């Protein structure tokens, strides 16, 4: 199979690493923020973590500018041929490609944890993306047993945008004291048949990631409808990012 460099800072990155290994890929993980806020990596030079044998870069990170913004005037040579699959929680593929001097080997993707249960993955070619990169992305997700579905390039894709909006709305209800977190989740599961309550789902996705999606939508659309709930922001500041940090909307002793 192929050699995949997985760059990421959340549950989706950790999970996709396991899935890639299970499906026979050679995986080099590059993770940050595994246990919460990590202040030691303000800027990551991807040129230095990618190797000559890397066939594909799968990125699932927020603060993407730290990874993909090209400071030099030249597009880093080593990155020109490798398909870069970037998770579109915070920017569009077109935007990220622009940071890389409008590189044609950048394409967006989107999914949500639990990735194990996902049967389909969203693929979003940017305006600069070439056919070879699109095919590489399709092949990669197919190799993981997921069906790639092509949609238009945008921040948040379909599923993350809808679910982040539900979570945000639930967070506002919680903040306003409408009901307890547990009652809000039970109500949504029993009243509307959702697979998870929005707040427990947020704890699985990572509150930092959810906030990233909402801030990305705010930035891209400039609309009040996406403004993040203040209590969500507070939890993120405090490092209560959900299951992986032992605390989010719920506690995980």
């Amino acid at each position: 199979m192929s050699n995949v460099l997985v760059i990421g800072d959340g549950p989706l990155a950790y999970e996709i690493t396991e899935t890639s290994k299970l499906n026979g890929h050679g995986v080099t993980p590059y993770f940050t923020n595994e246990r919460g806020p990590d202040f030691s990596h303000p800027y990551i030079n991807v040129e230095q973590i990618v190797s000559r044998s890397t066939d594909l870069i799968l990125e699932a990170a927020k603060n993407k500018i730290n990874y993909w913004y090209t400071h030099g005037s030249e597009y880093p040579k080593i990155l020109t041929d490798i398909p870069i699959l970037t998770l579109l929680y915070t920017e569009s593929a077109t935007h990220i490609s622009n940071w890389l001097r409008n590189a044609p080997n950048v394409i967006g993707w989107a999914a949500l944890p639990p990735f194990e249960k996902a049967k389909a993955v969203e693929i979003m070619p940017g305006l600069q993306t070439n056919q070879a990169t699109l095919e590489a992305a399709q092949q990669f997700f197919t190799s993981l047993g997921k069906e790639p579905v092509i949609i238009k390039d945008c921040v948040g894709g379909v599923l993350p945008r809808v679910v982040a909006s539900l979570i945000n709305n639930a967070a506002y209800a919680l903040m306003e004291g409408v009901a307890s977190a547990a009652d809000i989740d039970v109500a949504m599961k029993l009243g509307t048949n959702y697979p998870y309550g929005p707040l427990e789902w947020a704890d699985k996705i990572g509150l930092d990631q959810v906030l990233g999606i909402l801030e990305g939508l705010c930035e891209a659309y400039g609309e009040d409808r996406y403004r993040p709930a203040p209590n969500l922001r507070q939890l993120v500041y405090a490092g209560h990012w959900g299951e992986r940090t032992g605390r989010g909307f719920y506690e995980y002793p």
Partner: protein
Amino acid sequence: MTIEHIKKVGVLGSGTMGGGIAQVAAQSGFDVLLYDINTEILQKAFGKISGFINRAAEKGKITREEADAAIERIITTTHLPNMAGCDFIIEAVPEKLELKQSLYQELDGITSPHVILATNTSTLSVTQIASVTKNPGRVVGMHFFNPVPLMKLVEVIGGASSDEAAILTIIEMAKRLGKTPVVTKDVPGFIVNRVARPFYLEALRLLEEGVADHATIDRLIREGGGFNMGPFELMDLIGLDVNFAASVSVYEAYFHEPRYRPSLLQQRMVESGRLGRKTGRGWYEYGEDEK
């Protein structure tokens, strides 16, 4: 009144919700007095309820004896003063504030002040309904979901004047009816109808933006996220008019909060008469047997 004292439940309105509540109450061992405006409506409702209970017996979900006993526990009436004999009253009449308020005022003179009055309202303020009664403390929201016998959830809504004891009794009552109660404040849409709005509204937004067509959005929500139904399939099932009206009502009630802004595209669909399954066409087309 505490739960041990409740033997006979009065149900006002024998429509979709009232009928379902009467059925569940009878099957949970309560005597039920079902009230509506005329006998034809009540006969129809009683026929439906006994039909559902008999079918449950035929399917072996309950015994014949249980079914017969449940059906026997239901009595109907068009005479509101008969509610004097009930220990607990659930109201499920049409969603009109004046109608509900005038019924509660009549009940002031009929029932003992200790009898709890539970309203099944979806969109009205429990506080406002209660405000016209002599004992607003006994008025609490008890929001069931359709179809009542299948849906486990009950939202228990404390209005600004609801007594703590009355709220606790409703919680116990919901459990006795085999339901899972959640407690919420008296805010528009309570929990479910409020928190669920973006499920439809963001999906509509994505469609308006041309990110994907409605079928692709549904598929990604189902297959990517593990939802049972996509937002467009669900709108077709609920009825686009009903779903649109719910969004408009929540949007207005929250003083035009941008998170709840309704969709123009959906409004056009409603205007065109494509209301979903019930009209044979909504976002999808349906054959005769699928309506």
